[in-house]
C-alpha cells in the first residue's frame, strides 16, 4: 500500500467537484421541504436539467446559457408537480415518484441526438492572488464558477430562511399551513414558488453533471444522485450549512474510496465501495437517536383551504 501517492490537495479539489451536484439538488429540496412539500422527483428533474442544459450548451456553445436553461427546465417540470399536488391535491409521494419516471423517460427522448457529442464546458476560474497561493490556491481557489455559486447559494438560503420575513413565512407555511392560511398567507402560492426553486436547483445540479463533471450526455447519467440528495436533506436535519457538510462528506468518501483503491489499500473493496452509503446511514441513525429531527411539521401534508 502506498498512501503517499494520494495527494490530499487534489483529493480535496476533486471532492468539491464531486459534491457540487448533490449539494445543489439537496439545497433546492431543503427549501421545498421547509415549505412543507415533499418532492421525491429530484432525480427526474436533475436528469431533465442535465439533458436540457447539455443540449443548449452544445447548440449555443455557451455553458452559461446551458445552465440557465437547465434551471428553467427543472423548474418547469417541478411546476407540473406543483400543479398536481397543490391545486389538484394529488398524493405528494406518488406524484414525486412519477415525476422521476417522467424525467428519466423525457431526458432519454430529448437526449437521443446528443449521444456521444462533446460539450463546451465551464472554464476554471482564475482568481487573482488567491489562485496563486501555494496549496490552498490549487485546493480551494481553482474551480469552475458553479462550485462557488453552490457555496454562495448555501449562504443565501441560510440567511433568507433565518433572517428575512420571506424565510419566516416560508417556514410558517411548512410548520402549520392552517395557521399560515389563517394569517392570510397564500399557502399554495408560496409552496409553488418553493417547488419552482427546488426544480431550478435540481436542474442546475443535473447540468453540472452533464456539462462539467462528466462532461457529456449519456442516458441515466445522474445514476441515483437525486436520491442521495434527498437523504442528505434528512441527514442535515433541514439546516443549510449541514447540507454543505453532508454533501462534502458524501462526495469526500466517494472520492477517497476510489483513491484508496487506486493506491492499493489493503481494505476489502466491498467495504470501500459501500462506505459512502454506510456513513450516510450511520449519521442518519445518530441524528434520529437524538430525537429532534427538525422536520417541518406539515411536511408531506396536503393543504386545502376549506378543510
Amino acid at each position: 500500500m502506498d498512501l503517499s501517492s494520494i495527494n490530499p490537495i487534489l483529493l480535496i479539489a476533486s471532492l468539491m467537484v464531486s459534491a457540487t451536484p448533490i449539494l445543489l439538488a439537496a439545497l433546492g429540496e431543503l427549501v421545498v421541504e421547509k415549505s412543507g412539500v415533499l418532492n421525491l422527483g429530484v432525480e427526474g428533474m436533475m436528469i431533465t436539467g442535465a439533458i436540457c442544459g447539455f443540449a443548449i450548451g452544445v447548440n449555443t456553445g455557451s455553458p452559461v446559457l446551458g445552465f440557465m436553461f437547465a434551471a428553467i427546465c427543472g423548474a418547469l417540470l417541478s411546476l407540473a408537480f406543483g400543479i398536481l399536488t397543490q391545486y389538484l391535491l394529488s398524493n405528494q409521494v406518488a406524484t414525486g415518484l412519477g415525476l422521476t419516471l417522467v424525467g428519466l423517460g423525457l431526458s432519454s427522448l430529448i437526449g437521443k441526438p446528443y449521444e456521444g457529442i462533446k460539450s463546451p464546458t465551464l472554464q476554471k476560474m482564475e482568481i487573482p492572488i488567491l489562485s496563486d497561493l501555494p496549496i490552498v490556491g490549487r485546493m480551494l481557489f481553482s474551480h469552475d464558477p458553479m462550485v462557488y455559486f453552490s457555496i454562495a447559494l448555501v449562504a443565501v438560503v441560510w440567511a433568507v430562511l433565518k433572517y428575512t420575513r420571506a424565510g419566516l413565512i416560508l417556514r410558517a407555511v411548512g410548520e402549520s399551513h392552517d395557521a399560515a392560511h389563517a394569517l392570510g398567507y397564500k399557502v399554495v402560492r408560496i409552496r409553488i414558488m418553493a417547488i419552482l426553486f427546488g426544480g431550478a436547483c435540481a436542474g442546475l445540479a443535473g447540468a453540472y453533471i452533464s456539462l462539467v463533471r462528466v462532461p457529456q450526455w449519456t442516458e441515466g447519467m445522474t445514476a441515483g444522485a437525486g436520491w442521495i440528495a434527498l437523504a442528505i436533506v434528512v441527514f442535515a436535519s433541514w439546516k443549510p450549512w449541514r447540507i454543505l457538510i453532508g454533501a462534502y462528506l458524501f462526495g469526500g468518501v466517494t472520492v477517497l474510496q476510489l483513491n484508496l483503491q487506486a493506491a492499493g489499500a489493503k481494505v476489502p473493496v466491498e467495504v470501500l465501495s459501500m462506505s459512502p452509503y454506510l456513513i450516510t446511514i450511520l449519521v442518519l441513525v445518530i441524528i434520529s437517536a437524538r430525537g429532534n429531527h427538525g422536520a417541518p411539521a406539515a411536511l408531506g401534508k396536503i393543504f386545502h383551504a376549506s378543510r
Partner: protein
Amino acid sequence: MKRRTLLASAAALTLAFGGAAFAEDKTKVGFVFVGPVGDGGWTYEHNKGRLAVEAHFGDKVETVFQESVPEGADSERVMTQMALSGADLIFTTSFGYMDPTINVAAKFPDVKFEHATGYKQADNVSVYSARFYEGRAIQGHIAGKMTKTNKIGYIASFPIPEVIRGINSAYIHAKKVNPDVEFSIIWAYTWFDPAKEADAAQALIEQGADVILQHTDSTAPQAAAEAAGNVVTFGQASDMAEFGPFPRVSSIIDDWAPYYIDRVQAVMDGTWTSTSTWDGIGAGMVAIGEISDAVPADVKAEALAMQDALADGSYHAFTGPINKQDGTVWLAEGETADDGTLAGMSFYVEGLTGEIPN
C-alpha cells in the same frame, strides 16, 4: 417501469385475442439490456446487433427489448414477461443474468435463450461471448509502449472471469514491452455509472496513471482523460471514435450482428440447438478500432502484427511461461491456456498487485 407494464398488457392482449395466428409467421426476438441503449458502449453494440437483425429479416421478425434491467430478480421478471408475450428467442446480454436466465428457461422449455458472457448452459440455453482478452492483449502492448509514468490505471467493473481475463491479458502484454509497468486497478462495481467512472478515472490520473483502460461501459473516462490532456485511453465495447485521435488511440469493438442473425435464422429454420460460442478477432466478433496517429508508427505496426497473429491463431494471448500471482507456475514455456481455465479465471498473473475482491 412503464415499459414493463406495457409488456405485461401486451402479453395479456396476445393471450386474450389468441394471437397465435399473428405470432406464427413472425419470429419474435427479445433482448434484455443491462444499460441504456445510448450508453455508447456495451449495450449500444448489442442494440446495433438487434437493429441488424431487424434490417436483415425485415417483416419476418419482430424484436422487443428492455433496457437498464438490473441484474437479479428484476431481470427474471423481465424475461418471464418476454417469454409470456410470445418471444421465440431471448438474448440476455449481461453476466449477471446467468442464473435468472437458467431459472426462466426451465419454466419455458419451448423458448430459446441465449446468455452472453456466462458459462451455464441448458437444453434451451446457449451461451455466447467474445474473446475480448485478445483485444486487451493489443491494448496492453500499446499501453506499455505509450506510458511515460509506467503507471497504468484500470477501471474494472465486477470481479468476474471476463474482467479478470482482460486485466491479466493487458498486464502480460504491457509488461512484455515495458518491464517497469505497474497497474492500478479500481473496482467500480458497476457496468454503467458515468459520474462514478469519471471520478475513478480522475483518481487514477491524480495518482500518476497516464494510460487508462476501462471495462465499464460509458465514455466518461474518455472525457476525464481528455480534460487531463496527456492521458491515453482506449474505447471499450464500442469504438468511441469521437474521442480520437487522442486520448482514445484505439478500441475494442464488439460485433454481435452476424451472430444474432445466425441464431435468429436457426430458430426460423428449426435448427437451433444449445451451443457455446466463444469467438475472437479471427471470427470477427471482436474488432480492433483504428489505431490513431497518436501512436508511433512502429508501435502501430507491432500492434497490427499481433492482431493478425491472434486472428489466424498463430499466437495465443495467454502463452507461457506465465506464473500465477503467488508465483506458482500456470503455463510452462510455449504452453497456451485452455478455454476451461480461461472461462473460469479467478486469479491474477504474477506481477499484479492487490487482491481480487470476492
